[in-house]
């Protein structure tokens, strides 16, 4: 039997019309997993079912499924008398718009696994599936890893449809597009690429799809899987994509011409292409006054340098270039270090490693014992270590300040990069002093200049030079003055607002 599809093409169905046979087919593929629910509908006088409804437990909304079953009952009763059951009328009458026809085994199995509800009707060789998603999901909550004082408190959840809706709620434009890919042979994870047509660089969008299509793996469990598959260079400590759990950050970046990649099952959305200095901007910068935002950006850059270079500079100066230290400070430093047994390099490495251990313990351990770690950590790293003469007080200050500065960087992926590189610098400083630090800074800089994120130079706007991009990197200029989107990222449609925007009404009030 052939049926007509919506497009008018004749399509052969490969499913049997006997409902029990179809069910056997399905069960052969899915096994007898305990989470598969099979509901047989039959007349009281007849033991063989006229319809079967099949879905996974916990992934569907039971209320809606029950509603659908009663619709099916009504439909079958109505049609039983005049015997006019057909796929078309079923699709239209039972759940208009939601029910889709399925004509082969593979699609049927996949529909069940995707969480859809599959309906089999005796006498029809076409199965039907409805997306009646439900079940337990985390609600939209405040993001935990990227908090702000002012601005939206919404965070992404693990459900991709909710996440897309959160973005769509902020950008109600017809040009905002989401295109899906299913990646992962086993996990079959839904990955959605969002961009604004006409603002995002079409080459970048094309490149993203090309790289996503090239992924052939069994599983995608988090957006970091995608990140590692599609990044430009693996040999880099620096992230070439931002991950955020803030819908407002994604919306803002989409409007600047970037592309977002959403992955089902994780609240972290990837944004690309990004440049190095983007990691020092927080979405909150745009919600605060521009002067304080500019100041905060400079503070963050300063913190980056502190987190990267402070311990190594301290080692270099105290070990090799003591003449740089003002005399009074030098005397007090020398007095402190007199009793400590270790050279500055070993002392710093020891303290930094201790800190990293405590930090990792703080992340891993159960919440209830949390306070214990802070007490022990503060005592071990602080007072006790100094009093016992193991480390100098100055070193404790250096390590603590470095650790705090590390937390100022708004994106965790960038601060992790700094954490690793810092150790390299400490060893260089311990062996060659300031000369060694310079010998570390230059290769780092070359690497940054040579790095690309989807064809965009990573070290923009410092090199290659772009003054227009600097307006929104080192500074945060007021919105009425930010007339253009940044260079490179968006090559088309650069203008953001008209020249007169936000100017005229104020003049009139002046008198």
């Amino acid at each position: 039997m052939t049926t007509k599809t919506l497009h008018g093409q004749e399509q052969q169905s490969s499913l049997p019309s006997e409902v029990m046979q179809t069910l056997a087919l399905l069960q052969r593929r899915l096994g007898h997993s305990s989470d598969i629910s099979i509901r047989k509908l039959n007349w009281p006088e007849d033991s063989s079912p006229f319809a079967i409804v099949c879905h996974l437990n916990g992934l569907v909304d039971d209320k809606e499924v029950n509603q659908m079953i009663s619709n099916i009952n009504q439909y079958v009763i109505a049609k039983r008398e005049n015997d006019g059951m057909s796929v078309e009328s079923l699709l239209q009458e039972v759940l208009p718009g939601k029910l889709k026809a399925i004509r082969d085994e593979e699609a049927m199995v996949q529909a069940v696994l995707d969480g859809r509800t599959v309906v089999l009707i005796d006498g029809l060789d076409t199965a039907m599936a409805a997306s009646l998603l439900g079940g337990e999901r985390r609600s939209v909550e405040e993001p935990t890893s990227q908090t702000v004082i002012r601005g939206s408190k919404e965070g992404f959840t693990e459900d991709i449809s909710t996440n897309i809706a959160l973005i769509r709620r902020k950008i109600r434009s017809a040009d905002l597009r989401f295109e899906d890919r299913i990646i992962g042979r086993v996990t079959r994870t839904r990955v959605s690429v969002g961009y604004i047509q006409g603002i995002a660089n079409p080459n970048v969008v094309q490149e993203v799809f090309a790289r996503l299509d090239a992924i052939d793996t069994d599983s995608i469990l988090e957006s970091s899987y995608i990140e590692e598959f599609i990044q430009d260079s693996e040999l880099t400590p620096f992230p070439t994509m931002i991950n955020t759990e803030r819908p407002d950050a994604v919306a803002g970046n989409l409007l600047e011409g970037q592309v977002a990649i959403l992955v089902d099952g994780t609240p972290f959305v990837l944004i690309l292409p990004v440049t190095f200095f983007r990691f020092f901007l927080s979405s909150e910068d745009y919600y605060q006054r521009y002067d304080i935002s500019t100041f905060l950006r400079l503070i963050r850059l300063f913190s980056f340098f502190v987190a990267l270079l402070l311990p190594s500079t301290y080692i270099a100066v105290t070990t090799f270039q003591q003449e740089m230290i003002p005399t009074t400070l030098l005397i007090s430093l020398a007095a402190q270090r007199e009793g400590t047994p270790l050279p500055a390099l070993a002392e710093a490495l020891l303290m930094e490693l201790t800190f990293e251990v405590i930090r990792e313990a703080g992340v891993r351990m159960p919440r209830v014992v949390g306070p214990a770690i802070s007490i022990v950590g503060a005592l071990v790293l602080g007072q006790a270590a100094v009093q016992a003469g193991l480390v100098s007080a100055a070193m404790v200050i250096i390590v603590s300040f470095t650790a705090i500065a590390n937390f100022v960087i708004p994106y965790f992926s960038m601060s992790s990069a700094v954490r690793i590189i810092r150790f390299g610098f400490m060893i260089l400083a311990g062996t060659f002093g300031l000369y060694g630090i310079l010998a570390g800074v230059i290769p780092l800089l070359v690497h940054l200049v040579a790095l690309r994120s989807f064809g965009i130079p990573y070290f923009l706007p410092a090199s290659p030079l772009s003054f227009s991009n600097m307006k929104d990197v080192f500074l945060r200029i007021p919105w009425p003055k930010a007339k253009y989107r940044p260079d490179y990222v968006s090559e088309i449609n650069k203008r953001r607002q008209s020249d007169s925007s936000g100017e005229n009404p104020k003049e009139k009030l002046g008198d």
Partner: protein
Amino acid sequence: MHARQNRVSELIASYILFEIGSTTLFFIGAKAKQDAWLAMLIGAALGFVLVLFYWGTYLMDPKRNLFQLFSHYLGKWPGAMLTILYAVYFAYEASRNLRDLVELAAFALLNRTPLFILTLLAILVIGNSARYGARIALQLCLALLPVVIVSYSALILAIIGKGMLRFEYMLPVLEQGMGPVVQAAVPEIVSFPFAQTLLFLVYFPLISSTKKMGKSFFLTYGIVALVLTIVNQINVLVLGPTLAEMMTFPLLEVVQLIELAEVFERMDVLFVLVLFIGLGFKVLLFYVGAVTGISEISGTGYKRWVIPVGLFIFASSLTSPNFSHHMWVGIDVVLNQVYPYIQMAIPLLLFLVMFFRRKKRLQS
């Protein structure tokens, strides 16, 4: 995307770093004593004539770099010989600057570490930068230029602010007539640093837009020459002509004299790092030039020659037994006897050949 080609800003940045390079390290025009500034200006003016010739050479065939010009205009074998000669010259210049860098490091920072180790570390860092090729080298210059500009501005401001300049050191002007001044300027100052611009014939063809390039380039030349003259003269104005002439690294002594608020006392240690940047980039640009030449003549890839050229630079920077010998070879041997041919005679020959062939072509 327009990130694939170098931009004028990158050329300008690298030219500034290149010219500042090792120039500020020494007191240039010491023979002219307090009139060093006059010698510098004369040197810059004469150097400008040479730079005009280089620029003319580039303009006549803006698509080819120096090595391609040699083989295209001077024939296969002479071109190949000259390419090798110039690649060796660039590599040798790189090694000289590398030695300067290492000597400075040993003098100011690490006086107990063997030169061998310091040189090894420096060539590793610079070789790693050269590995990425000319395009990234030029972009890198741009990234570091702000650091250099801010440091030199701060230095000049601090010296002026502390009232360290004593203009009476500049008197008497032309104590012994123009003789010593001209002698100091020709050929030494013309040749170093100004005629080294020759290297940029390798980099000019990498730049995407040529429209504004000439104007910005000559403007940069003027400003750099002026700044170098001022920084050079600061040595005289702070230390006096006799002391400036005697010091190995006079500018470092000047920086050491700056004391701000009893906190910043030994700024020279930090300033050494800025000098390292200038020197290192000079090494890098010469290095990349040499590798470009060798890969041009051998017809093989660029990356294959980074390590061999690096080894050559490393080895030849260690040939001088001590710094005095290094300086003697630099000034009395190569600068006075070899460089006039390399920086003036051969480029002029190339220019003339190109000029007449072009004229002939236009006539026919």
